[in-house]
């Protein structure tokens, strides 16, 4: 598990649902096919209404046209991040686009679970609301040992909650790796 993650922030609002993260029309790609999987990166966050794309300004594309990767490695969300459809394509799409961590006030449970069990990205919880404090494009440094995210652009530091119960699964890299470590399923 990476203990330090640096990257630029992409700021989103409250109740970001998985249809916004990856719109249904792109779900016909098969994530198990390496060539098709890349397209989830291309269309990540493309369902967000234009005015809310990259707060506070809006109209900031998460992934440029025809690209597969985003320049933003850290997503900042508000309340109830990842609500709605259970599609695992959502954390997968963010990860394919290059996201390594989301920091939100709290998560819809299936998104959180998919992120952890699939080992796609770190779903971290902020102690305070960061949506109005961090701006899209800010340079961030997450330090999990210290339990903080530093805003290098604005010279501020914000606390992050410990991962709690799911830490062993996150450390193992997902539910399969965890089950192998604990002897629940046979080694590969």
């Amino acid at each position, binding site marked *: 598990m990476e203990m330090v993650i640096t990257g630029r922030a992409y700021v989103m609002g409250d109740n970001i649902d998985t249809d916004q993260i990856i719109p249904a029309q792109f779900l016909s790609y098969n994530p198990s096919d390496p060539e098709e999987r890349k397209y989830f990166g291309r269309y990540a966050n493309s369902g967000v209404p234009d005015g809310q794309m990259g707060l506070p300004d809006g109209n900031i594309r998460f992934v440029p046209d025809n690209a597969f990767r985003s320049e933003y490695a850290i997503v900042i969300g508000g309340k*109830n991040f990842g609500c*709605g459809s259970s599609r695992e394509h959502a954390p997968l799409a963010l990860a394919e686009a290059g996201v390594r961590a989301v920091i939100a006030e709290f998560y819809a449970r*299936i998104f959180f679970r998919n992120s952890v069990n699939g080992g796609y990205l770190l779903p971290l919880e902020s102690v305070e609301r960061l949506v109005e404090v961090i701006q899209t494009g800010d340079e961030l440094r997450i330090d999990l040992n210290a339990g903080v995210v530093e805003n290098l652009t604005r010279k501020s530091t914000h606390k992050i909650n410990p991962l709690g119960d799911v830490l062993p699964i996150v450390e193992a890299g997902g539910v399969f790796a965890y089950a192998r470590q604990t002897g629940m399923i046979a080694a590969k």
Partner: protein
Amino acid sequence: MPGMTITEKILAKKSGRSHVRPGDNVWVNVDVLMTHDVCGPGTIGIFHEEFGKEAKVWDRDRVVVIPDHYIFTADGKCHRNVQILRDFVKAQGLKYYYDPDFITGEPGFPNPYKDPTKTSYKGVCHKALPEEGHVRPGEILLGTDSHTCTAGAFGQFATGVGNTDAAFTLGTGKTWLKVPATMKFKFHGEIPAYLTAKDLILAVIGQIGVDGATYRSMYFTGDGIGSLTLEDRMTLTNMAIEAGGKNGVCDVDDKTLAYVRNRSNVPTWDIVEEDANAEYHSTFEWDLSTMEPMVAKPHSPDNKDLARNCRHVKLDQAYLGSCTGGKITDMIFAANILKGQKVKIKTWVVPGSTEVHADMKRLNLRGVPKDSNEKSIEDVLADAGCDIAPSGCGACLGGPPDTMGRLNSPITCISSTNRNFPGRMGDKRAGVYLASPLTVAASALTGYVTDPREYVTHKIETGTAGVV
């Protein structure tokens, strides 16, 4: 020791413990795992990657595969995904698979079934699961779809999971769950003619918010719930996820048992009741006689208002369908409002399952088998000017751009479906009002959001529809 709620009792039993408390992490044995065409291919990929190319599922009689999402589209990738399911079902020797037999491998838009009683295709998974006998009190059902919680109406623990979790269960028959605290929603009185369960759940979500039940179980109880048809209870539990709930659950009564006895493909099950001293996270009470027809305005299921407050909202389209509002009783409700009249706006009707579609042809407006000189529900809807599409998820989740009823431009639609987040039904600038089938039908007649009390004069009987 405090007593347990229904959800706690099921999780205790399935994890081999005498007692669990909210917050406990437990490994449980899963009774049934369902997947469909959108999440199946990814799940199957992970399953083989993790357990090996030759791996077999833990129990081939407990895996149910129901293609339903992207069926009526010319998108070749969608047909390919159905083929991935077929290959997996064959290789694994799975017992329960409901094939869209009209998808032949020919490129282009498939020719839909002609007779809904003569296809192996079933339509929307959450409707098909109980119809085909995969839903029983006391069991644990997982599905790769967030609305798997629908089956809680039958007194079981049912919840949605992602591909990785599903692949893990495919190989092991197990999953880990954190025991949720339970919120209790108690309804008193008898459901009035102008309300359906959709109004109740929109009121609940409107009150507690789209995150109001996050990580929790929602328990719907009281004589008001007893007065609902089983199908209407499914509307309640279906939308538990729209409040962030892990599951929704109802008590088991004679209505539940009549249906399950007739359908279940396993002969026995456990009826689980709450303990008298069960502890609840919170309790909410409603009196059905004081409730009014509700809508959820764009763009969130908790953006509640009374239908009558939105009479000025001009609509471009109406949509009746999905696992929430495409059941046979929903169709009967709508048909009784639309009978003998003409819709003013484009109105799509998408049966929730092929069984619903067959019943629309077989039953009359009172929900009983029609005489040869009587009109069927489908006749009434078609006469009113509705467009009737073949069964499936359809435009409920937008889907590929050629999906029938999809909102391909920034229009305003009233819908009996479950979500109205931006872009859910297509264009992210479109606005969706969620409402009961009664309200959708009344609004289709006026072209504006309309309180069904303008049309409902007496209780609409649904007869034997959806009863057994």
